[in-house]
């Protein structure tokens, strides 16, 4: 019986090693989302009023595209912080497009109604824009420079991420509009 127990343990350990080995192969790794340096994928999504907001209309501004949902706890913490960033930097050409990915619109509405905000919120319940940006986690945000390219990408939200945003936004706002990357 002792030998059989050892056989079991060996099998178990071998299986662990095998699974780790197999799944660590490049084929199983996460597909990379939209990365810094790329032209930001186009966005054109409806607001709560039914009008359409487009990323292209924001050229010349520094834009934070933030993908969020009401069921995602870090997203809920990020929302007021991002709203504050908008208040602080809007006069210098900073804009926010908060893309809501709730499948049920009412969940998002309940969340928003309880939180007065200045940022623009658009709705993408099917997640097409999330797919276009290749999100690997929630929340995910992309800081887009005045030239329309993605300059910084963040997955997840912590106080450290918020500090990083401030530095990055400052850096991007100090760049002049125009240049060879203009759309």
């Amino acid at each position, binding site marked *: 019986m002792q030998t059989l127990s050892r056989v079991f343990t060996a099998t178990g350990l071998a299986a662990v090693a095998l699974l780790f080995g197999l*799944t660590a192969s490049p084929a199983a790794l996460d597909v990379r989302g939209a990365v810094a340096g790329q032209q930001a994928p186009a966005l054109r999504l409806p607001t709560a009023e039914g009008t359409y907001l487009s990323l292209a209309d924001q050229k010349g501004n520094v834009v934070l595209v933030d993908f969020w949902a009401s069921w995602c706890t870090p997203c809920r913490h990020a929302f007021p912080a991002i709203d504050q960033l908008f208040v602080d930097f809007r006069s210098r050409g900073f804009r926010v497009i908060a893309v809501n990915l709730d499948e049920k619109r009412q969940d998002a509405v309940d969340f928003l109604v309880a939180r007065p905000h200045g940022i623009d919120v658009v709705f993408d319940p099917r997640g097409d824009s999330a797919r276009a940006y290749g999100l690997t986690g929630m929340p995910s945000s992309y800081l887009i420079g005045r030239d329309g390219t993605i300059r910084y990408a963040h997955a997840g939200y912590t*106080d450290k991420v918020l500090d990083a945003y401030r530095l990055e936004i400052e850096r991007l706002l100090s760049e002049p509009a125009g240049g060879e990357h203009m759309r």
Partner: protein
Amino acid sequence: MQVGEREPAPAPRNRWRPLALAGVCVTAIALVAAGSLRGENILNIQFHTFQDSRGVTVLEPIVDLDKDFTERSGLKVKFGVDAITAASDSCARCHPDGANSQRTFVNVDYRRKIGDYKLDVGGQISRENFYAADTAMVSISRDLNKGNTTIAGGYSFSLNQPQLHPTQSVENQYAHDLFFSVTQTLTKNTILQLAYDYNRVSGYQSSPFLRTRVNDIMVVGNTPDLRSRQAVVVRLRQALPGDTYLQADYRRYFDTWSLASNTFSLGVEHYFKPSLLVGFTYRWYGQTGADFYQPSYTGNPIYYTGDFRLQPFNSATYTGHVVYTPAHRLLDLLPDKTAIDLQYDRYQASTQFASSMFTLGLRIPL
């Protein structure tokens, strides 16, 4: 008295207790004081009560504080006390007026994200009259497939030291535990987990309190020194329409004492409002007896036991629980998002044993 031929060791000293308590308090204060309340911090207070048909009553308050230091690391410290009226028939035999006991334990767990892996290292110290248990554990997990697959493995080592009351001699028992699991998200509404557990206990495994009849003489049991135990577990979580969730678990267990069991539990939870969750769980358990178990013995048996856990039996547990997360601050005192949970369990075994348990818990995000 058939307790084997081992060398007795000196009884464990109890001087650790005030030191450990001081250590826990210092750690707790340090945790809260260490910087701001950045990151997630949760304080859990639970109060369990247990009463059974053998006349045992246990009150168990437990406090734990879970703090994130950074987004990559965190610490959890847990402290609990079991106040036990050990007036069960095993104790009432010599203590007809009843005898109280107390078990105190401290558990510390440190977690850290290293690349794509999450590492947990922890330990537990537990002391009660006539029993000491020390455990060290480590576990590691990794998420794959955008978080759809999680592989986890862990190992723990325990040194358990029963004292052979009413003598002063102390025995040693060593337990190694190896655990492995795969958790897979199957659909937007379904998660499946498969787990395997291997446990190997060596050393003294009888109970100095539980006696059996051998040739009409009541004696303390004599069990084998080695027990290898294995369990395979399948667990399912299914989101159903209408804010309802289904939980189903199955465990198949067997060991080298020929004790095999099946455990099956089924639970349903439903949100009557976003702030009110109500759930019911039914658990069925059935085990065969250990191969050397008999209600009483005659002749010259090598192994014999009075441990009721080794007999064949089955049982049913009925559980109801409620979790309430008020929208407004509770009593205007506790932080937002504090949750209160109440749980009642009723356990009934085919051996005529029954017990009731009640828990009141508070989960306080700081």
